[in-house]
C-alpha cells in the first residue's frame, strides 16, 4: 500500500470543515413535550447540549465525512503493491557492475560454501534472481538486461525457465564503466509501448547518480542485494618516475585508500617483472590516503603493486606500471634549416638527427632526381619532425613506412595559405599546450588544411593553427603554419612548447601501452604488416579469474588500431603476429572503474514512474525519496475509491430523502 501524492492530504481539511458546518447549523424543530420537567433533569445530568452532542447520531454527516474522506484518499492516489500483479512481461535489470564481484561478508555469505572464499554479491544476485524468476516469473515472459559496457539484453521475452536460469548463470561482472543510465533507458524502452509489463532492478545499491531520471511507464521495483559492510583497500595511483635505462634506479609512488572503519594493516608488495622488490605494511583506515614511495628500484619492464590483507573486493588490489627503457629521445628532423627548432629540440634533451631538405626542391621537377636520393637513416626514431614543405620522396617507399610507425610532427608542410589569422589564441587543454599562453604571437599565414586524425588544440581568431591526435596508434602533431612565417620561435614559450611536444610524444614510450580502465577503447600502434593479434592475460586478477579475453577487433584493413581493452582487470599482453611469424607483444594494464571500488552502502537507482499514460510527472527532489521506496509494482486504487465514494453519495441521497438523521 502506498501513496503517490501526500500533498493531497491537505484536502483532508474538508472533513473538519464539514463537521464545522454541521456544528454551526442551527435548525431546531420545536417539539412540545409535557414531560419537560423530566427532560430538564435528564439534560442537566447529561449535559446533552454540548456542541458535539448533536454530531453523534447524524447518518448524513457520517456519510458526508465518509464520502469526503474517500475522495481525499482518492486524490492522494493510493495504490496497492502487488507482487507479480498480473503483468505479463517482466523486465529484470541485473546490476553486473564491478562492485558486484565484491565478496558479501557476514550472514549473507554463510549460505554459500565457505571454502570458495565467500560468496560474491553477484552469486547472491544469481541466487536471488533464480529464486525470484521461479516465484514471480511463472507463466510470464522475462527479459533480462545486464549492466555492462553497454546494456545487454540477454533475454528477450523468454518464457522457458531453463533458458532464463542459463542466462542468469552466465552473468559476469563488468569492471569498466558500467552503463547504468543506458540500462535503465533500455528497460524503459522495452516497456514503453507495453502497459502490461513490470521492471525489477536487482542491484547492490551502488548505482551512479543520475541527474535526469529515466521515467518508466510501468511499475518499477528495486530488489536490493544486501552487500553487508565490505572492507576494501584499493590502489588509487601507481606510477614509476625518474626514468632511466637498465642499471639505473627508478622511483615508484603509490596511493592506497581504504574504507575500513578501523585502521587495518595492509601489506603492500612491489614486484618488478615477477620478483619481489619491496614490501611494506601500511595502516589504512577510512577516508585516509596513504602515499607510499619506493626508491632505488632496479629497472623492470613491468612493475606490479599488490595489496594483501582483509579485502572483499579484489579487482582493485593491483596496479601495474611500466619501466622506461630509453633515456634520450631520438628525433629525426627533416628541415631546410631551422636553427631555433633544432636548438629547442636539443634543449629538450633529445638526440637530433638532422636531414637537410632543399626548400627550393618543391614543385621543381628538375630537382626530383636529387630528392629521390634522400637516404633513409638507420635505426628507429621516437619522433620525426618535418619542417616546411616536404619533397614527394618523403611520402613514399621506405620513408612512408618509417613515418607510419613513428610519431610525427609536421610544421607547415601544407600548401602556402593566404589567410592571416588574427585575434586572441584559444588554447585547448592538451599536454602540448601546457604552460603556454601564446599571447601576442604573430602567425603570418595558415594553409587551412585540416587533418583527418586530429582535433585543433590551438586556434587563433577562430582559425585552427595546431592539430594534435593519433594515427594508427601513433601521436601526430601538426602546425598549420611555417615557423618562418611566425615569430613563435622568438617567443620565450617556444622551448617550452618543444619540450611539451617531446614529453607528449615520448610519454607512451614505456615498455607497456599504458594503464586503462576496463572496457575502454584505446589506440594501439598496430604494425602495418600485422596479420593476427590477440590479447593474452599475463598476470594478476585476470589470471585468477580464468577469464578468456575477447579476440582482437578487426577492421576491413586488418587488425584495427582502435581496440577495446579486456573487461577484467589485470595485466595483458597484446600480441601481434606478422606474416613471417614474428610476434611483437606489448604490455597493457587494465584497471577497474574506481567508482566500483567505493563499496559504501548505496541507495540504488532513482526511478520514477509516469503517472498514467501521458502526463509526465515532474519530479521534485523531495518527492524522489518517497518514490524510491514505493516505486514497486502498484495497482491503483483510484477507480475503486471513486466507485465507493459514488456509492456513499447515493446512500447519502437516500438518507437525505428519508429524513434528517438516524
Amino acid at each position: 500500500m502506498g501513496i503517490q501524492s501526500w500533498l493531497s492530504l491537505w484536502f483532508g481539511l474538508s472533513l473538519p470543515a464539514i463537521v464545522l458546518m454541521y456544528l454551526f447549523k442551527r435548525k431546531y424543530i420545536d417539539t412540545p413535550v409535557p414531560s419537560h420537567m423530566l427532560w430538564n433533569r435528564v439534560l442537566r445530568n447529561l449535559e446533552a447540549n454540548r456542541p458535539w452532542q448533536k454530531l453523534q447520531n447524524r447518518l448524513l454527516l457520517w456519510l458526508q465525512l465518509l464520502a469526503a474522506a474517500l475522495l481525499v484518499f482518492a486524490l492522494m492516489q493510493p495504490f496497492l503493491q502487488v507482487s507479480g500483479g498480473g503483468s505479463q512481461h517482466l523486465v529484470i535489470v541485473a546490476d553486473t557492475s564491478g562492485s558486484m564481484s565484491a565478496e558479501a561478508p557476514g550472514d549473507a555469505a554463510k549460505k554459500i560454501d565457505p571454502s570458495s572464499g565467500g560468496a560474491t554479491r553477484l552469486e547472491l544476485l544469481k541466487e536471488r534472481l533464480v529464486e525470484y524468476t521461479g516465484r514471480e516469473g511463472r507463466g510470464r515472459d522475462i527479459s533480462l538486461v545486464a549492466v555492462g559496457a553497454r546494456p545487454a539484453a540477454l533475454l528477450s521475452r523468454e518464457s522457458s525457465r531453463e533458458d532464463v536460469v542459463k542466462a542468469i548463470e552466465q552473468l559476469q561482472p563488468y569492471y569498466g564503466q558500467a552503463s547504468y543510465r543506458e540500462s535503465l533507458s533500455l528497460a524503459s524502452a522495452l516497456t514503453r509501448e507495453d502497459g502490461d509489463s513490470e521492471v525489477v532492478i536487482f542491484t547492490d545499491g551502488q548505482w551512479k547518480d543520475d541527474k535526469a531520471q529515466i521515467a518508466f511507464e510501468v511499475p518499477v521495483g528495486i530488489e536490493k542485494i544486501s552487500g553487508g559492510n565490505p572492507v576494501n583497500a584499493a590502489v588509487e595511483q601507481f606510477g614509476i618516475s625518474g626514468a632511466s635505462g637498465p642499471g639505473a634506479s627508478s622511483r615508484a609512488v603509490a596511493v592506497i585508500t581504504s574504507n575500513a572503519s578501523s585502521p587495518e594493516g595492509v601489506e603492500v608488495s612491489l614486484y618488478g617483472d615477477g620478483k619481489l622488490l619491496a614490501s611494506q605494511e601500511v595502516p589504512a583506515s577510512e577516508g585516509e590516503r596513504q602515499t607510499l614511495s619506493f626508491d632505488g628500484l632496479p629497472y623492470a619492464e613491468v612493475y606490479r603493486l599488490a595489496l594483501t590483507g582483509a579485502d572483499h573486493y579484489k579487482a582493485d588490489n593491483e596496479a601495474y606500471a611500466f619501466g622506461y627503457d630509453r633515456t634520450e629521445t631520438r628525433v629525426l628532423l627533416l628541415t631546410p634549416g631551422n636553427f631555433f627548432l633544432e636548438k629547442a629540440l636539443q634543449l629538450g634533451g633529445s638526440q637530433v638527427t638532422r636531414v637537410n631538405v632543399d626548400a627550393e626542391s618543391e614543385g621543381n621537377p628538375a630537382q626530383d632526381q636529387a630528392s629521390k636520393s634522400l637516404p633513409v637513416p638507420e635505426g628507429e626514431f621516437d619522433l620525426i619532425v618535418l619542417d616546411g614543405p616536404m619533397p614527394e620522396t618523403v611520402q613514399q617507399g621506405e620513408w612512408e613506412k618509417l613515418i607510419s610507425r613513428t610519431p610525427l610532427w609536421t610544421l607547415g608542410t601544407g600548401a602556402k595559405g593566404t589567410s592571416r589569422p588574427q585575434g586572441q589564441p584559444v588554447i585547448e587543454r592538451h599536454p602540448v599546450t601546457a604552460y603556454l599562453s601564446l599571447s601576442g604571437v604573430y602567425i603570418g599565414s595558415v594553409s587551412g588544411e585540416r587533418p583527418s586524425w586530429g582535433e585543433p588544440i590551438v586556434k587563433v581568431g577562430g582559425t585552427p593553427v595546431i592539430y594534435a591526435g593519433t594515427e594508427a596508434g601513433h601521436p601526430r602533431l601538426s602546425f598549420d603554419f611555417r615557423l618562418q612565417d611566425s615569430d613563435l620561435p622568438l617567443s620565450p614559450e617556444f622551448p617550452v612548447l618543444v619540450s611539451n611536444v617531446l614529453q607528449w610524444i615520448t610519454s607512451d614510450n614505456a615498455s607497456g601501452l599504458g594503464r586503462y580502465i576496463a572496457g575502454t577503447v584505446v589506440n594501439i600502434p598496430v604494425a602495418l604488416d600485422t596479420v593476427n593479434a590477440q590479447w593474452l592475460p599475463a598476470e594478476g586478477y585476470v589470471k585468477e579469474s580464468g577469464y578468456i579475453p575477447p579476440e582482437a577487433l578487426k577492421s576491413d584493413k586488418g587488425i584495427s588500431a582502435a581496440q577495446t581493452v579486456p573487461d577484467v582487470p589485470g595485466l595483458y599482453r597484446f600480441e601481434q603476429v606478422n606474416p613471417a611469424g614474428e610476434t611483437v607483444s606489448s604490455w597493457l594494464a587494465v584497471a577497474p572503474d574506481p567508482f566500483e571500488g567505493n563499496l559504501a552502502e548505496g541507495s540504488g537507482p532513482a526511478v520514477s514512474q509516469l503517472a498514467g499514460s501521458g502526463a509526465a510527472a515532474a519530479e521534485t527532489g523531495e518527492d524522489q525519496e518517497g518514490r524510491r521506496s514505493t516505486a514497486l509494482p502498484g495497482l491503483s486504487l483510484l477507480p475503486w475509491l471513486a466507485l465507493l465514494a459514488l456509492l456513499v453519495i447515493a446512500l447519502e441521497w437516500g438518507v437525505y430523502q428519508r429524513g434528517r438523521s438516524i
Partner: protein
Amino acid sequence: MSGSKHLLPPEWLTRLERLSLNTRSRVAGTLQGKRRSRRLGSSLEFADYRLYAPGDDVRRFDWGVYSRTGKAFVRQFMDEQELMVSIYVDCSASMAGIQGTEAGTGGGPSTSQSRAAADKWLLARQLAASIGYLALSSYDRLQLACYSKSMDSRLPVLRGKGAAHRLFSHLQQAPLGGDGSLAAALSVPGALPRLPGMTWIFSDCWLEGGEEELSRSLSLLAGAGQEVVLVQVLSREELEPRFAGDLRLVDVETGGGKEVAVTSRLLEAYREELDRYQGMLARVCAERGMSYVLIPEDMPLQEAVFGILAGAGLVKS
C-alpha cells in the same frame, strides 16, 4: 360536541355498580351510607343480641325472644355510614399530551384533539368518572375538583346515583389548560376536604417542583385525614419517547424551550430518569401509607379498573 358522546359507555356503569371502593381507614360520616361502619348502628344488617339495659332504644327490643324465654334482649344492627370521596383531576395543559399547546393556551375543551392528545386526558376523566360513579352508587359523598394552578372548577358535594349525570357532564366540559401545581391548588382555602375520607388524584404528575411539591401536597391531604390514591396517567410518548434529530423541546405549560440533539443515549437516560421519578413518587406515597398507581394512556379502561386498581386493592367487588 363532546356532550353527545358518553364519557363512559352505559354498559360500563352496570359493571361499576358491583364494585365498591376499598378503604382501610375508618369510615365516618354524618349520614347513613351503604358503607358498613365498625360501630354498631342503625342499619338493617343484624349483628348480635345483647341483654337489655335500661336506656336502650325500645324499638330494638326483641319481643319475640322475650315472649319465648322471658329474658329481655335487644337486637344490635351494624351501623352503616357514608364515605367522603374527593376526586382531584389535573386539567393542566400537560394533560393534553404533546399536541395540546393550542388547547392549553386556548383553554377550550380538548376532547376533539388528536387521538394521542385526547387519550391521556380522556382516560384520566374516564377513570375519575368511574371512581366517582362507584362512589355515588355506594351512597358515598363525592366531591370533584379540576385543578391546574388553582381549583378551576369544583362540584358541590354529590350523593346518590342520581347525581351521576352532573358528575359526567362536569367532567366532560372541564376546561384544559394552564400550569399544573397540585400544592398551589391545595393551598387554596377550602380546597382540602373538610371530612376525613378517601382522595383520588388523577394527574400526570409533571410538577414543576417534582417530588418535593408532591410530598408537600400529600402531607396536606394526610393532615386532612385523607387516604390518598395517586393515579399517574402517562402517554406512550412520555413513557417511551421516540424523538430524533435536533429538537427544541418546548414545555407545553411554561413555553420554555431547551435545545437538544436527541441520541439513543439521551433517550436511555430519559427512561432511567423516568424510572427514578416513578420510584420517588411511589416512595413518597408509601411513606405516608398512600397508594400510587401508574396507568398508561393506551390501557383499556376495563383493564385499568379491574386490572390495576382492583389489583392494588383499591377497588373491590
